[in-house]
Every structure is written in structure tokens, then in C-alpha cells.
């Protein structure tokens, strides 16, 4: 039983650290209304940069997190540049950056994975400083970072620039007529989003103690699945803070479900199939219900005869 609890605790920590990535996806998918596929590449980029700096250059693991965020921002800027300056559809611009990042990530690491065995991470540093057990420490660090980011995003999206950014996703024609350069707001959203994704990649890298070229594969689908789960669980809450929190909660629930089905004996390789199914269902069900309702509401005699 205690093995089960430990794996649950691990799943929750993992969910929170990946939740930072989900917050990034939330910005592009929910606020800007585009599915940004850069995410798969920028998540791995964050992990690779972090591992290369910590292991290869002996950089402080905290600085490595900042560097990973910065390079995530750059990756977002590349997608934003292709999308806003050259009008490449966002989804295609994201794919191009993602594919390019695969090679970039390999170049950065020099090989396909780097273990972080005998080096300090922010978690090992905190364990040394406060003397708590590693699992709990990871969890606490994750919660602190997630809360800080949610508060930061809540503030930002309430500002004049943040409001203009939300309006860009809502009605681009209108906000341009109100004097906002939508190329700038889109670019900014993609940069912030991928910055968070890069940070998340670095955090996951430090907690699992390795970086791998394939660590970001399917990240966008995990992000979408987490957003969908969060929406189902907390969709009734209308405040923006609650919506951001629901993204992280969705991520936690996703990783808990994952831990449970893996314990039940499901092959880890089937997890992506399950994630894709969750997202596909979440996208299909509302459409199917609408169509069904429309069919049912038809009556030959008019509304009175129903």
C-alpha cells in the first residue's frame, strides 16, 4: 500500500511540474485560440538546455532553469515570427519550429540523452538545505513554482497589454480597430507560452534526473488532455484565476490517472494512445451532443407538437 501512496505522490509532483507546461499551452490554446505545436520541441529544448548546462558546464541548477525559460521564449519567437511576419498558419509554423528543434536539441546535448547523476539539482539543494525527504521536497517546490506562475499570469492578463492579448484571441478585427498591433500580441503570447514550456521541461529534467531527446514528444497532447480534464472538473468556476488553476489541476489528475493505469498493468507505450483518445473524445462529444440535439429538436408540425 505504501508503494501505491509513494507512486501517487510522485504522480502529483510530476503533474505539477508538467502543469507549468500546461499553463503555457493554456495561453495559446485557450486565450489565443491556436494549437501551438512548438511545445513538443520547446519542452525538450528546456530539458536539454538544463541538462547540458548543469552537467556539461557545472552551472547552478537554478540559473539553468532561467536559461531554459529564455530559450523557450526564443523558440516561441521563431514560431511567432513565421506566423505573424510571413502569415504561415500557426499550426504549420509550430510544426516547422518543432522539427527544427529536434536537431537543435541533439546538437545542444551532443547525444540523445544526458543523465544528471552526480550533480546538484534545485531539489537536491533544497533537500540538503531543509532536510526533508526528496518526494515531499519535489512536491513543495512544484507547488511554490506553480502558485508563483499562476499569480504572475493572473496579474499579467489583467493589465492593459494582457487584456489586449486576450482580446486578440477573442476578436482580432476589433482589437486592431482599437489600435492594437495583433502581430505583437500574438508574438508575445507565443513567447510567454513557450517560455513556460521550456521552464517546465527543465523542471521535469531536474526531477527525473535526466534529459532525453524524446522527452517532449506528445507534450502538446498531454497539455490539451490536462486542459480538457481541468475544464471538466472546474469548468463551472468563472474567475480567471480558477481557470489557470484548473489547467494545473487537470495536469495533476492526468498524471494520477496515468500512474493508476500503469500500476494496473497497462503498457507505458500505450499511454499516448490513451491521451489522444481523451483529447479526441473531449473534442468530439460536445459536437456530437449539439448535432444530436438539433436532430431531436426537429418536428414536422412546429414547436407546439413536440
Amino acid at each position, binding site marked *: 500500500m505504501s508503494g501505491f501512496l509513494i507512486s501517487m505522490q510522485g504522480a502529483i509532483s510530476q503533474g505539477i511540474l508538467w502543469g507549468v507546461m500546461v499553463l503555457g499551452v493554456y495561453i495559446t490554446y485557450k486565450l489565443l485560440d491556436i494549437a501551438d505545436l512548438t511545445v513538443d520541441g520547446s519542452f525538450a529544448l528546456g530539458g536539454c538546455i538544463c541538462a547540458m548546462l548543469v552537467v556539461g558546464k557545472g552551472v547552478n541548477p537554478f540559473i539553468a532553469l532561467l536559461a531554459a525559460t529564455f530559450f523557450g521564449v526564443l523558440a516561441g519567437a521563431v514560431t511567432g515570427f513565421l506566423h505573424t511576419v510571413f502569415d504561415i498558419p500557426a499550426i504549420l509554423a509550430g510544426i516547422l519550429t518543432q522539427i527544427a528543434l529536434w536537431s537543435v536539441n541533439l546538437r545542444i546535448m551532443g547525444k540523445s540523452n544526458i543523465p544528471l547523476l552526480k550533480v546538484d539539482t534545485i531539489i537536491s539543494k533544497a533537500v540538503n538545505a531543509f532536510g526533508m525527504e526528496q518526494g515531499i521536497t519535489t512536491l513543495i517546490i512544484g507547488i511554490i513554482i506553480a502558485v508563483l506562475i499562476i499569480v504572475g499570469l493572473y496579474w499579467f492578463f489583467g493589465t*492593459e497589454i494582457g487584456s*489586449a492579448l486576450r*482580446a486578440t484571441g477573442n476578436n482580432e478585427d476589433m482589437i486592431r480597430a482599437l489600435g492594437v498591433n495583433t502581430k505583437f500580441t500574438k508574438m508575445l503570447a507565443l513567447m510567454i507560452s513557450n517560455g513556460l514550456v521550456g521552464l517546465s521541461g527543465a523542471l521535469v529534467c531536474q526531477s527525473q534526473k535526466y534529459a532525453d531527446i524524446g522527452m517532449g514528444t506528445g507534450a502538446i497532447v498531454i497539455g490539451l488532455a490536462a486542459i480538457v480534464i481541468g475544464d471538466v472538473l472546474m469548468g463551472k468556476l468563472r474567475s480567471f484565476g480558477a481557470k489557470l488553476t484548473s489547467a494545473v489541476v487537470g495536469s495533476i489528475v492526468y498524471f494520477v490517472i496515468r500512474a493508476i493505469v500503469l500500476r494496473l498493468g497497462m503498457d507505458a507505450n500505450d499511454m499516448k494512445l490513451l491521451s489522444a483518445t481523451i483529447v479526441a473524445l473531449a473534442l468530439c462529444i460536445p459536437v456530437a451532443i449539439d448535432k444530436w440535439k438539433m436532430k431531436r429538436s426537429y418536428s414536422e408540425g412546429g414547436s407546439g407538437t413536440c
Partner: protein
Amino acid sequence: MLNLTNVEKTFNKGTINEKKALTGVNLQLNEGDFVTIIGGNGAGKSTMLNMIAGVYPIDAGKIVLDGVNISRMPEHKRAKYLGRVFQDPMRGTAAGMEIEENLALAHRRGARRTLRWGITKEEKEQYVEELKVLGLGLETRLTSKVGLLSGGQRQALTLLMASLQKPKLLLLDEHTAALDPKTAKTVLDLTEKIVNEEHLTALMVTHNMKDAIRLGNRLIMMHEGNIIYDVAGEEKKNLKVADLLKKFEEASGGEFANDRMMLS
């Protein structure tokens, strides 16, 4: 005030779908002019407004607004000078955002957006007062999502948003065409009120000839990408719908005015 000199625009140049939308338009507006624009479908009315707003670049000519040459200025920069209301009520407001958020976005038209909070307490009080003027009961629904409002309410809100930060020029592109007659009248009355009270300079495209005659101090008729009739003052006041139809027939070479114009 506003000077259009030889403004030309051709869409899909060099293709089979080539369409000369504006063929060297010249127009001078004076401060405080309220001009109604009529003309058949494809006459270039909306295109002219879109060219002034900078939705598409012009091919040739010059647009000068209040001494500033805006011919090649991007749309979001021209927004500083312009208030706009579109035909489609969905286009002028952000459905997923609150009424007060929409107003706050409009309040900052032309201002540099910063990291200050997007809406202040004083503003909210001001919005309550402004919304009362509309008489639609929106002042009690500041935090409602705009998507919950009817087309007429959204159009009235857009009108308020366009004038919240006094524009040098107000562009109204058939802004009542998508509304039912009663709502259209409400929005039109409101338009008249706002334009008169704020002493705005305005261009209003309409398909309704009676409205075109009744409102404003000047009327222009467009046909095939240019202005064919321009009338102001007493002469305009004494116009009859029949006069306009006759003008229109002359211009289109005896061809009868289209159905939409007849019906109004």
C-alpha cells in the same frame, strides 16, 4: 479635415476576378460633416471606408486626415484617429470578454498599452453613466460577457465604444443593416445623438435612402468605384427618395435601382 485624392484600389489585379473597387476617388470633408453614403452593391462604399481605416493598402492616391498623411499607415496606428462600427454586430465587440472589459479596451484606443491594470475604478463608474445613456439596461450588467447580448445591444455597445475616446472621424459601415427595423431605429437614433452631442465628423454607409436624406448635412452617392453625386445643405434637405432613384438610374444607364434600395 479628411482629404481623399485620387484614391485607387483594384482587388485581384491581373486575374480573372479583377475588380476595380475604387477608381480615383476624390473627397473633402469639413470638420463636423456628417455624410451619408448610398450606392448599389459593389459601388465601393465599404471599400472606401476600409481604405480610410487601412484594412487594405491603397494602390494609388493619398489620404490625409487632419493634416496627417495616413495613406501608408498600418491599420492599428490609424485606429488612434478613427472610431468604427461594422455591419456585423459580432465584429465590433469581443464576445468572450465582459462589457466593462470591452469598454476599457476601447477607452485605450490610440493610447500606448502598458503593464498598468487594464481597468480602473473611476472608469467603471464612468461606464455606468455612459451605459445609462444607451437606455438598454446594460449599466447593471458590467461584468456580463458580451456574447450574451443581442445583436442590437452589441451594436449599441460598439457605437459607444467607438465614441468613448473621441475620434477625429467616425466610420459607420451599414451598421444597422443586420438589425431588425425596431432595433435599427434605436441604434440609428443613438448614432444621431452621439454624433450631434460630441460634434463628430462621420461617414455613414446606408442602404436606406430615407435615412440617408434625413440624417447628416451631406449626402454622396457612389457608383462603380467613384462618387457620382455629392449634395449638401438646403439642397440635400429638400431631396426626395424619387430624386435619388432618378440620379441612380441616370448613373447606371437606365438600369433600375436594385431591390435592396427599392425596399427601403
